[in-house]
């Protein structure tokens, strides 16, 4: 169980963030407020008059009971803000993952099966393009093409999936593609190397020797084993997904998690910034743990 010490250090990092602020944190948190009584109240409320370790204990106690502080600007608990924005980002991220899996795994299979062919080079070029394109630029260019020039898709906005699925898809397809693009490149590289590895193994030779159809060898025999490392390595890209979501939501004005942290940064709403980092880090660690467990579950050799 290495999760607990790691979580401890995550909390220390996030807690120390607020002490990077120049000057008196109470003054900074007060913002426009210049009333000494109000500043004193903030100091008391956040235990800023106590020593650092004591402040940390108070902060962690709060975080553990779901109290991540209050947004200075919106006068709302940070946790409820995050819970409100989360479904938007989850929808966006899920669509992005579907796009990334389709393109990435598809291109990975083709390039492994047709190794050193024109298809292989094209897929590798696609991956290099995906890794090197800044997603905020890709977003702007897509808006220019599909919204400004062709007028096919709305440039920004968000409609919940439950409200009107057509309008929802129309607003989400561009941000989801932008977000999925970079992940697709990484998944393609993982799929390619995993498939190349599996295709060399003895049981594939046996399957071919039995006279099975080539597509059955590839999809039924090879892909099933090749996908296992792809899924676990893919889970590591959750961080890339969240980082990308910050920029994508900013460009397409999607009111999700990423927009929340950027707005918080510009309004000096520090409790929200800390809350978002804490929640994303915890989610990342939990997801990795689940991926490790899934890996053991699908791989019989690791059970025992």
């Amino acid at each position, binding site marked *: 169980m290495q999760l607990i010490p790691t979580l401890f250090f995550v909390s220390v990092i996030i807690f120390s963030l607020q002490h990077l602020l120049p000057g008196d944190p109470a003054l900074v948190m007060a913002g426009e407020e210049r009333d000494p009584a109000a500043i004193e109240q903030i100091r008391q409320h956040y235990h800023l008059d106590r020593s650092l370790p004591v402040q940390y204990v108070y902060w962690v106690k709060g975080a553990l009971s779901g109290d991540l502080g209050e947004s200075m600007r919106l006068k709302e608990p940070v946790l409820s803000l995050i819970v409100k924005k989360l479904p938007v980002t989850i929808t966006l991220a899920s669509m992005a993952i579907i796009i990334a899996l389709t393109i990435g795994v598809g291109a990975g299979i083709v390039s492994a099966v047709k190794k050193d062919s024109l298809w292989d080079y094209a897929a590798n070029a696609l991956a290099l393009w995906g890794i090197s394109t800044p997603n*905020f*630029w890709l977003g*702007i260019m897509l808006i220019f093409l599909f919204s400004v020039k062709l007028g096919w898709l709305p440039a920004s906005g968000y409609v919940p999936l439950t409200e009107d699925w057509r309008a929802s898809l129309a607003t989400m397809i561009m941000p989801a593609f932008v977000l999925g693009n970079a992940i697709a490149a990484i998944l393609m590289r993982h799929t390619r190397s995993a498939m190349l590895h599996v295709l060399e193994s003895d049981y594939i030779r046996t399957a071919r020797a039995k006279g099975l159809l080539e597509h059955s060898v590839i999809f039924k025999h090879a892909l099933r084993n090749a996908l296992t490392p792809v899924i676990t390595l893919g889970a590591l890209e959750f961080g890339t997904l969240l980082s990308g979501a910050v920029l994508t939501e*900013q460009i397409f004005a999607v009111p999700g998690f990423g927009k929340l942290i950027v707005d918080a940064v510009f309004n000096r709403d520090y409790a929200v910034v800390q809350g978002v980092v804490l929640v994303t880090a915890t989610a990342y660690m939990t997801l990795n743990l689940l991926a490790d467990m899934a890996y053991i579950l699908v791989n019989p050799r690791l059970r025992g």
Partner: protein
Amino acid sequence: MAEAALTATAVANAAESIETPTARAMRRFKRRRGAVFALVVIAVFVAAAMLAPLISPYDPDLQTWSAVRKAPSALHWFGTDDVGRDVLARVIFGARASLLAGVISVAIALLVGVPVGLVSGYVGGFIDALFSRITDALLACPFLILAIALAAFLGPSLGNAMIAIGVTTTPIFIRLTRGQVMVVKVEDYVEAARAVGNPHWRIALVHVLPNILPALLVQATLSIAAAIIAEAALSFLGLGQQPPAPSWGSMLNAAQRFLVNAPWMAIWPGLAIFLTVLSFNLVGDGLRDALDPRSR
């Protein structure tokens, strides 16, 4: 006499056929045309950044109100922006912020990450466990989100963006160095160095460190690519280079508002980021293949 001459030629031939590792890596790298071409592109960008005042057609901050949002022409090759500044001049000067941010933030990550990883991997035990958990904790925070949070708390500026990117890149180098050290430190030559009584610091610096340099070089190149994108992202969000100083990220931010009337404002800085990042990625991939002792 003749025999001696023959032996001398044989020795000379043998010396020629024994290639130093550096020469072998160079030969392999040159075989990858994409990587060599990418290196040329990087050289062009570096030259443009250094010689910016000499080659730039205009002052990048000069606002010309009679030439606002003009399309690319013979006068302004890349067009002008919303306050009549020459986009080409700003792309050339913007290379400074991007390349500087890429190199300096990776330098910060190397300066902190390599010593920590070296100690962690070499010493092991409690120190290793402690450093590893801190590294895990840093890696658990999504790269850009941590960088945004750091830049927000430190205050928006190019220098702070570099620190933020450097800090978030550090755990990658700690983990890489530690892993490599653990492989190298059980090699026979390290054992031999220990047997003849070398102090630990000397073994770590003279016998272990040089052997992990190739892996660090590859990772540093790929990290520069990631750092350039990160700096552009932070500047795009307004957390990096502050206006009016030119940077590719902040140019894209401004361009977003004028996409209908002045799309060239978005095309050029984005293309510059793409080309630079692509080149560093290509060189990194090329170096990885060239330095891999398993490939011929």
